[in-house]
C-alpha cells in the first residue's frame, strides 16, 4: 500500500505539469488578451503595446511559461491581473466556499442517495421503488440553474423561508445558523444530480449483490435480513458506488460553477468563469491547477477506500 501511494503521488506531479501546459496553451492561443480586455474600445495601439509589456505578455510563449512554472514551483502563482492580489490567496479563499458547498452536496448525495437506493432495492418492484426511480430520472435531467431558480422563487421569494443568495446575510445580522440557512438551497440544487445517480447505482448494485449465491447461503445459515444486509450486502454494494463518488466529486467541482452563479455563492467556479472572460491568465492557471489537484487527490482517496471496503483488492 505504501509503495502504491508513493507511485500515485509521483504520477500526480506528472498530471499537474500536463494540466499546467494545456491550460497555458489554451489561454494564450485563444483569441483575445487581457490588455485588450482591460482597455476595451479605449485602446490606442501604443497603449496596447505598453500595457502588454507591463503585464509581461510581450515575451515569447515558452519564456512566459517557464517564468510562470518556475515561480509556481516555489509557491508563487503570481498576481491576478485584475485584482493585483496574490493568486494563491484569491483561489484558496474562494476555494473554501466551493469546497464547503461541494462537500455538503456530496454528503447529501451519498447519504440520501444510499438511503434511497437501499430502500428501493429492498422494496423492489413496489410502487415506492418505481416512484423513487422516476423521481431520480427527472432530477438527473433537470438543468441545475433552472432548478436553482425555481427553488429561489418558491422558498425564498414566495414563502420567505430561506435566503436565496450568497453565503451570509448582507447586513451581517444572520445569527448562528446563518451559514446553514444559506447553504440549504444551493446544496440541494447541486446535489440533485449526484443524489439521483448514487441512488440508482446503489439500487442496481445492491440488487446484483442480493442475487448472488453467498446471500442465499447467509439466509440458509439463519442470519436475519438486517444482519445480512449490514455485514455482507452493503460492503459489496459500496464498492460499486465508491467509483461513482470519486467521479461525482469532479462533477460537483465543475457543476458548482452554475450553482455559484445563480446563488451568488462566492466560490472558485464563478471566479474562474469571470477570470477566463477577462483573460486573467495567472488566476485561471492557478485556479485550474488547484481543481486538478483536488480532483486527483479525491480519486486517490477513493482508490484507497477500495482497499478497506474490499479485502480482495491489494495494491503494491
Amino acid at each position: 500500500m505504501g509503495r502504491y501511494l508513493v507511485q500515485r503521488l509521483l504520477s500526480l506531479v506528472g498530471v499537474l505539469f500536463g494540466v499546467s501546459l494545456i491550460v497555458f496553451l489554451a489561454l494564450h492561443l485563444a483569441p483575445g488578451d487581457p490588455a485588450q480586455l482591460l482597455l476595451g474600445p479605449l485602446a490606442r495601439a501604443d497603449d496596447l503595446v505598453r500595457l502588454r509589456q507591463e503585464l509581461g505578455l510581450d515575451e515569447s510563449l515558452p519564456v512566459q511559461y517557464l517564468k510562470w512554472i518556475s515561480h509556481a514551483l516555489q509557491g508563487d502563482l503570481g498576481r491576478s491581473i485584475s485584482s493585483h492580489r496574490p493568486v494563491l490567496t484569491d483561489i484558496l479563499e474562494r476555494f473554501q466556499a466551493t469546497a464547503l458547498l461541494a462537500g455538503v452536496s456530496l454528503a447529501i448525495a451519498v447519504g440520501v442517495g444510499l438511503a434511497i437506493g437501499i430502500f428501493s432495492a429492498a422494496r423492489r418492484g413496489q410502487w415506492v421503488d418505481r416512484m423513487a426511480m422516476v423521481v431520480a430520472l427527472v432530477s438527473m435531467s433537470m438543468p441545475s440553474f433552472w432548478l436553482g431558480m425555481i427553488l429561489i422563487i418558491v422558498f425564498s421569494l414566495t414563502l420567505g423561508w430561506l435566503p436565496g443568495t450568497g453565503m451570509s446575510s448582507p447586513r451581517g445580522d444572520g445569527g448562528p445558523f446563518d451559514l446553514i440557512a444559506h447553504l440549504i438551497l444551493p446544496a440541494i440544487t447541486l446535489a440533485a444530480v449526484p443524489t439521483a445517480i448514487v441512488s440508482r447505482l446503489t439500487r442496481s448494485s445492491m440488487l446484483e449483490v442480493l442475487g448472488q449465491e453467498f446471500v442465499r447461503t447467509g439466509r440458509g445459515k439463519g442470519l436475519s435480513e438486517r444482519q445480512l444486509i449490514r455485514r455482507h450486502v452493503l460492503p459489496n454494494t459500496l464498492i460499486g458506488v465508491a467509483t461513482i463518488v470519486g467521479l461525482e466529486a469532479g462533477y460537483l467541482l465543475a457543476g458548482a460553477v452554475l450553482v455559484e452563479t445563480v446563488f451568488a455563492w462566492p466560490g472558485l467556479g464563478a471566479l474562474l468563469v469571470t477570470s477566463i472572460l477577462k483573460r486573467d491568465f495567472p488566476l485561471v492557471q492557478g485556479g485550474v491547477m488547484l481543481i486538478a489537484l483536488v480532483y486527483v487527490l479525491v480519486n486517490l482517496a477513493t482508490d484507497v477506500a477500495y482497499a478497506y471496503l474490499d479485502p480482495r483488492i491489494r495494491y503494491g
Partner: protein
Amino acid sequence: MKKSRSIRAFWSVLAVFVLVLSSCTALTGGKKGGSFVLGLVAEPTSLDPATLTDINSMRILSSIYDTLVRFDESGFDLKPALATKWTVSPDGLNYTFELRKGVKFHDGSAFNAAAVKFNFDRMLDPKNQYANTGPFPFGGFYYGSIKETKVVDDSTVQFILSQPYSPLLNSLTLNQGRIVSPDAVKKYGKDFTQNPVGTGPFKFSEWQHGVRVVVTRNDEYWDGAPLLDKIVFRPIPDEQTRYTELKSGNADAIVDVPPDNVAQVKADSKFTFIEQPGPHIWWVSLNMQKAPFDKVAVRQAMMYAINRDAISKDILKGTGTVASGPIPPSIKWAYTDDVTKYTYDPNKAKQMLADAGYASGLKLTFWVPESGSGMQSPKSMATAIQADLAKIGVTVDIKTFEWGAYLGKYGAGFGTDADMAAMSFMLDPGDPAPYLGLVADSAASAPAGFNGGYYKSATVDKLLHDALATTDQAQRGKLYQQVAQQMTKDVPWIFIDNQIQNAAMSTKVHDLKLHPSFYIFFTKIWMD
C-alpha cells in the same frame, strides 16, 4: 439566566422610547443612520481608482474618494471639489489649482499639493518608485498630455501640459483622477488595491471577495458627513438573481434592472424605479474601404431601412432612446438636434439602393459581440437589424464572437472580412473629445485606433483638432455640433441608440439619484 422584573421593565421602556424616537425622525426626513445594501452587476476588480477600467468598480469608489473637480448633481457643469479655484493659462498649457485646506485622508494624513503630485506622478511616470502598483491602463489616455505636475505651495498645484488639451478639466472628474493617500500607497504597495484610503464621504471597512465591500460613514467629511451609517456593496452577476434579491429585500437597491423586468418593477408600489439618460451611444460601423459602403447613398439607405424606434421599444424595452448622431444628448453643451434626420422609410431605402446600382439586393457580413461592457443586448439588436434589412433585399450574415475575441478583431480593422460591426461607448468625462479622437479621427483608423471602418473626413479631422486646442467650452461645443452635422451627412455609422441607465430601490430608500455620467453619488442617500 433570569432577569429581574425591574431590568425587564427598563428594557421595555427603552424599547418604547426608541420606537417613538425613530418614528419621529422618519417623519422629518433626512434621517441619519442605517446600512444601505446595493446590488451590483459584478465583483469589483480593485479599489485603487488609477488601476480601474470597468465602470462597475468605479461606481463603488465615489464613496471612498474625491476628485479635484466634479460635476454638479444633474449634469456636466464643473464644480469645485478638492480644488476650490482653478485658472488656465491663455496658451492652454498651464492649469493651476487652489486646493481646499484642512482636508485629511481617512488615515489622518494631510491632503495637499504634494499628495496631488504623488497621484499623477505614480500614474504617468513609468520610472516612478510606485509605478509598480499599476498598471494604469487609462492613465495615459486621459492625462497623457500632462508633462509635469508642480507643487507651487502646500495648497497650490500646477499641471504643465506638453500640448493644449482642452478636455483635461472634464477628465479630472473621472475615476482615474480620484486622489489616493500617498501614505497608504507607500504602506501597502501592491496591496493598496485591497486597502483603499481616500478623502471621501465613507471609509473603507472590509472586502470579502465575492461577497461584499463595506464602507462606513466618515464623520469628518469636508463636505458634511453623509447620512448613512454604512453601505454594503454586493456583487450579484446573474441579472435574474439581482432582481429576486431586490424583491426579497436582501438588497435595498439594484442597478441595471434587466429590460424584461422593467415593467414589473414600475408596476410594483413597493419599489421606486429611476432612470437617467447616460453619455452612451451604440452604433454600427460601416466599412468604408470597400463596396457597398464606400458609397454614401448606400450608407444613408441603411439609416432609412432600420426601424430604430422598434429596437428601443421592443428589444431594449425603453432602456435606450434613438440616437440621432454621434454625440449623446446628455452632453448638452456639445449636442445639437439640427442634424440630417432619417425616418424609418424602407421604401425610400430600397429606392436609394436601386439608384446606387444594387436593385438586385446585397449580401453583407455583420460582426457582433455576444456581450460586452455597454453593448446592451447585442445579439437581439443585431437580429432586428438583420430582419429590417432583409425587408429591402439585403441579406445580412451575422458572425458573433466572445467579447475578448471581438475587441481584438474590431481593433485590427474590418479588412475585407466585415462590412459592418457593432460598437458602443461610454463618454463618462462628459466630453466627446477622447472618444471621437479614438473612433472618428482618420488618424485613428484601425489598427492604430478604434476607427474600424476607416472613416476619413478632412472636415471632421480639422474640427476635432481645433476643438482640442481651444479651452472655450462654448466654442468647442459649436465645433462638436458641426462634427455631428458632418457625420450625419456622411453616415460612417448607423446611429442606433443612447442607453438609459436605470436603478430600482425599495421605498425605504430616499435621495438615490443616477448621475448622467453613470457614476453614483452616496452622500445624500438616507433610509427610513
